[in-house]
């Protein structure tokens, strides 16, 4: 049984008209669910991976607001029939890949039929006036995952590696600055090179453990940080630039929306053949490298 992407929804906040993380989320998730093969009742898990969300709520989970907003089994009065568990994953830009694996585990274990992963990182500018700029493009993304009984398509071979010795390169925190709380982003100027150092070690380990080579993959889906970052990654991996999926836009990296946006682009523009394989290489604070295979 393969766990596949059934539907993707994206919302680019081009003119910054959307001011809340919840609204970004809704604009991506509603078309995602509408165009999927599933009804809201079928969604047994809602995972929000947004690290930067409205009012930096720490309780309850942001996903419970999303579940309520989208009216996904939200008003149960008993434990009978279809129901949904909502929870957040907070793990920098690794959250979306973590959530894809979580949905895969929950579906494979038979706990749910379909899972919805949403991302809607948005920094409230009024409390983020110091430190480095957040450097990511606020955007909404949603992906609905379900099982594919026939064929070997879907996500496989998730592997994660953490490099704590590089951790100081990327940090964000709220703190009390004189008379108000403020959000600080700290990025080492060489953070992209630090990520690439981790990619080199992390991908080598992945290829060794999975006993595969980069030639086994038809395309590589990197974190959509910047075009320059993707070019450097191609150089480090020793693969042709054309093999790298690059949908980076001006205005910052796609952060947690990287994977769904890249996948959406592939489905719409690359039109992959059944059996083709993509290697996903994701980087995040920590410093973490996550790899996974997606077979179309």
């Amino acid at each position: 049984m393969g766990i596949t992407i059934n539907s993707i929804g994206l919302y680019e906040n081009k003119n910054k008209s959307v001011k809340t993380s919840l609204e970004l989320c809704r604009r991506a998730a509603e078309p995602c669910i509408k165009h999927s093969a599933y009804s809201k009742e079928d969604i047994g898990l809602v995972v929000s991976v947004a690290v930067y969300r409205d009012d930096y709520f720490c309780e309850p989970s942001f996903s419970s607001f999303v579940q309520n907003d989208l009216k996904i089994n939200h008003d149960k009065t008993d434990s009978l029939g279809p129901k949904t568990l909502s929870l957040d994953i907070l793990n920098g830009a690794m959250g979306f890949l973590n959530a894809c694996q979580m949905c895969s585990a929950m579906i494979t274990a038979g706990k749910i039929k379909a899972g919805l992963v949403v991302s809607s990182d948005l920094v409230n500018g009024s409390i983020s006036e110091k430190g480095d700029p957040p450097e990511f493009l606020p955007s909404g993304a949603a992906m609905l995952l379900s099982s594919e009984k026939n064929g070997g398509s879907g996500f496989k071979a998730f592997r994660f590696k953490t490099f704590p010795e590089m951790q100081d390169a990327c940090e964000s925190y709220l703190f009390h600055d004189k008379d108000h709380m403020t959000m600080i982003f700290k990025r080492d100027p060489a953070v992209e090179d630090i990520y690439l150092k981790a990619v080199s070690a992390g991908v080598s380990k992945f290829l060794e453990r999975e006993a595969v080579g980069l030639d086994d993959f038809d395309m590589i889906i990197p974190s959509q940080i910047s075009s320059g970052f993707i070019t450097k990654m191609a150089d480090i991996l020793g693969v042709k630039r054309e093999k790298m999926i690059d949908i980076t836009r001006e205005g910052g990296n796609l952060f947690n929306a990287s994977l769904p946006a890249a996948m959406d682009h592939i489905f719409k523009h690359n039109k992959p053949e059944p059996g083709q394989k993509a290697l996903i290489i994701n980087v995040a604070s920590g410093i973490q490298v996550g790899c996974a295979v997606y077979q179309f």
Partner: protein
Amino acid sequence: MALNTVIESLGVYTPEGRLSTKELVDGCKVKPIIDIEDLTGIKTRPVVADGEYAIDLAREAVTRCFEISKYQPEDIDLVICTNISRYNGPNWKAGFEPSTAAMLARYFDFSNAIIFDEPNACAGMFTALYIVDAYLKAGFVKRAMVISGEALTCLARTAQKEISAPFDPQMACLTVGDAGAAFILEQTDNPAVGFHDMDAFTVAHHCDYCIGTFSKEPHGGFVMYTDSIKIHQVAIGMTAEHVGRMVKGTKWENSENHHYIMHQTGTRAIKTTRKSINDWVGKEVCSEKNSIVNVIERGNGASTAHFVALWDHIRNGAIKSNENILFAVQSSGINLGVGLYSLDDLPERVMSWSRMEQREAIKEAM
């Protein structure tokens, strides 16, 4: 047949400091109209020392958990941190990146594990357990660690400054306590032990009944606004049905069969929930005798509450090896959960560790 998930090890750390409800209430600019101690039964709670934060509570709990476990950090395939509190430094510093799990990888070799934070209010550790059960059953991992360090009394400090009405939405902040907890999960081929059944879901229609965020006031800090009446009405009513439906017609409907551990918000809430479950089932599922009440000296430890209660009652001899636990979970969200669990020899191993720790403390004092 699917294998049961079992708690291989458990570690809990509570800071040495104590803060009484009386001290907290006396320190409020505007005192609540309700006698908080009388309503909740909470007399005191552990409180972090100056310079002690959520990450420290988590780290100490993980250290204890590994001391009791047969495993080392590098044996763990999945690490999930569930703390609501991200309070990790002076001036109300609350970290967002890196995740708590990644920060702990500095102290423990989790470098090859899947790591992430999964905060889910007071249900965090239980929902992580529910998720880990799926990873184990799917064959994605062999063992996982769930961790939480809750430095929550900072909420009470802000509430002392901000409570402005005798019946204020920040009153629930005066009930919290600080603690760290960690446990390791794996599968067992012994069908007599482990989780026999578990369920968790969210009734998100009521998601705004309890909200934790940062203070917009000049003094800063963190705040939690709770509609205690509404959240208890929904959570207790639905818990009665959820637990009742899970146990009715099974050996679990007999209170002699198990210990009952629910979320530790207050003694009256525990009593009311107990009665509601018994009324729904029509039998005494939860009695005064089988109900674990840990809130009096611990306060509400949020996501750690069930596991601090389990630890404390193993250590005081009330819960023994091979006994059964009925877990009932309630949190803002609103999340609800039930777990039917049979212990292996974990209590004996925890007691053995406790005796060793006592001997070492005596040696150090000499």
